[in-house]
């Protein structure tokens, strides 16, 4: 059953050094506030997993929280590179990180398999591509019915999934709308989960019976953080701050400007700063 906690308590109780952690969100609903809390609590040696690691993973990597990154596309969407990820991978600053690389189809299928309790995912993939040469976890099976050769990847085993959502009700049921990515699969693939939400409501009153709802008994901790997805966005609440994604390119380009920004905006601040962004766009 979901526990309603402060963000600091939720991260403290659920994220441990060395954990396999996914903070998912496909452009939309990226749990920035929760990621900042992980940085403030100085978690170490995390094995970070995400289809599209972007700014929040750049920040976690640059602050020395990660030792491994499993991903399928690592960049600042529409802008360019993740400079902190590159610096860690190519130059070992602030520490060297290992990578486990896949395609989107592989990652999506691997989450789906983990949520379904299966040991691996099977799909028609990687044909003529070179990743299987450098990632030994990509293997091949022969279909027992047709003889077709298919790719397999292991299910993603998560210690903890961290996501952001529009709202939760007082029983801890969580509602996601809009671009829902792989968040439902990530939560169901994880031993523990932390969900930050824009607000708590008496009833979810989903606008459609097909809304994505995570029942309260599948969710670990819930913390209310209005604006908690900024500079990503929350459909129905506030828009994506595209200007910040562009600005990040310069902030993260040098180690000094990155460290100064993190010190001022993350280490010396708390999750309450995100509320300003929720209000601004409302």
């Amino acid at each position, binding site marked *: 059953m979901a526990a309603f906690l402060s963000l600091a308590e939720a991260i403290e109780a659920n994220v441990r050094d060395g954990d396999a952690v996914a903070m998912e969100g*496909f*452009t*939309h609903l990226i749990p920035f506030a929760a990621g900042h809390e992980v940085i403030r609590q100085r978690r170490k040696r995390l094995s970070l997993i995400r*289809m*599209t690691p972007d700014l929040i993973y750049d920040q976690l990597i640059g602050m020395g929280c990660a030792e491994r990154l499993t*991903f*399928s*596309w*690592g*960049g600042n*969407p*529409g*802008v360019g*590179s993740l400079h902190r*990820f*590159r610096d860690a*991978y*190519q130059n070992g600053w602030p520490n060297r990180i290992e990578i486990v*690389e*896949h*395609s*989107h*189809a592989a990652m*999506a*299928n691997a*989450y*789906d398999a983990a949520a379904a309790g299966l040991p691996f995912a099977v*799909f*028609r*993939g*990687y*044909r*003529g*591509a*070179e*990743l299987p040469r*450098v990632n030994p976890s990509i293997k091949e099976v022969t279909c027992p019915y047709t003889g*077709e*050769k298919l790719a397999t990847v292991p299910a993603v085993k998560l210690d903890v999934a961290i996501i952001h959502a529009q709202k939760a009700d007082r029983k801890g049921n969580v509602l996601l709308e*809009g*671009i*829902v*990515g*792989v968040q*439902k*699969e990530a939560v169901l693939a994880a031993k523990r989960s932390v969900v930050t939400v824009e607000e708590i409501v008496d009833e979810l009153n989903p606008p459609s019976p097909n809304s*994505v709802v995570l029942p309260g008994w599948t969710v670990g901790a819930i913390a209310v953080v209005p604006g908690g997805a900024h500079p990503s*966005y929350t*459909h129905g609440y506030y*828009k*994506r*701050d*595209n*200007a910040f*994604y*562009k600005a990040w390119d310069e902030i993260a380009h040098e180690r000094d400007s990155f460290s100064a920004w993190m010190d001022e905006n993350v280490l010396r601040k708390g999750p309450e700063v995100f509320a300003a962004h929720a209000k601004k766009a409302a």
Partner: protein
Amino acid sequence: MSANFTPNEMMTVAAARALRNDDVCFVGIGAPSAACNLARQTHAPDIVLIYESGTLETRPNVLPLSIGDGELCETALTTVSVPEMFRYWLQGGRITTGFLGGAQIDRFANLNTTVVGPYEKPSVRLPGGGGAPEIATSCGQIFITMAHTKRAFVEKIDFFTSLGHGQGGDSRKKLGVTTKGPTKVITELCVMEPDETSKELTVVSLHPGVTKEQVTAATGWQIKFAPGVGETPPPTDTELKVLRDLHARTKAAHGGNA
């Protein structure tokens, strides 16, 4: 007919024209997105645009900065989860045309978006494959849009992120891939298509004012020209107006510095 257009506008217009009204397109960010939406707002009003974030039949009024911008979802017929997108819609064989680009391309239109240099110790670490490895094999055909430079059009790509025509000939068939693969490569200089038998890229039309020598100089292998290589018709006034309006709205929407 308009005389004043940029090479990039020519590339986008040429890519848009290659799309048909009955296409179902897997759209990428940047030039593909501009081309697909230009097509939708000109000759292909019913074209189905799908973005890998899960939006089906989206009709954005401005171009997205990222693959999952809110505009894509708000204007979509429906939005599905990412696993569903890759399993049912892409792998299920429902997409007629996919768009790809990359940091490097070779003469058989194989693409690299992973690393420059060796994988373990790259000189440049690129974003990676994302959807590309499976887009390249699951879509009915692939269009490629890229900036035409010697650094990108190389004799040998450093990493095979996604399959084009492999080593040429019937490479795709040998790998058990039944889709057509790259059928057009469109740059700011010209349009290339694979030779029917060898599958080597061949220039079929030069954009207005572009010479064969320019294309040869910008290509890292001895590029071939089709007999009777034509000239790409320049953008029409309508195409340019629609494209420029689209970019102007986009710039205004993305904090003024798109």
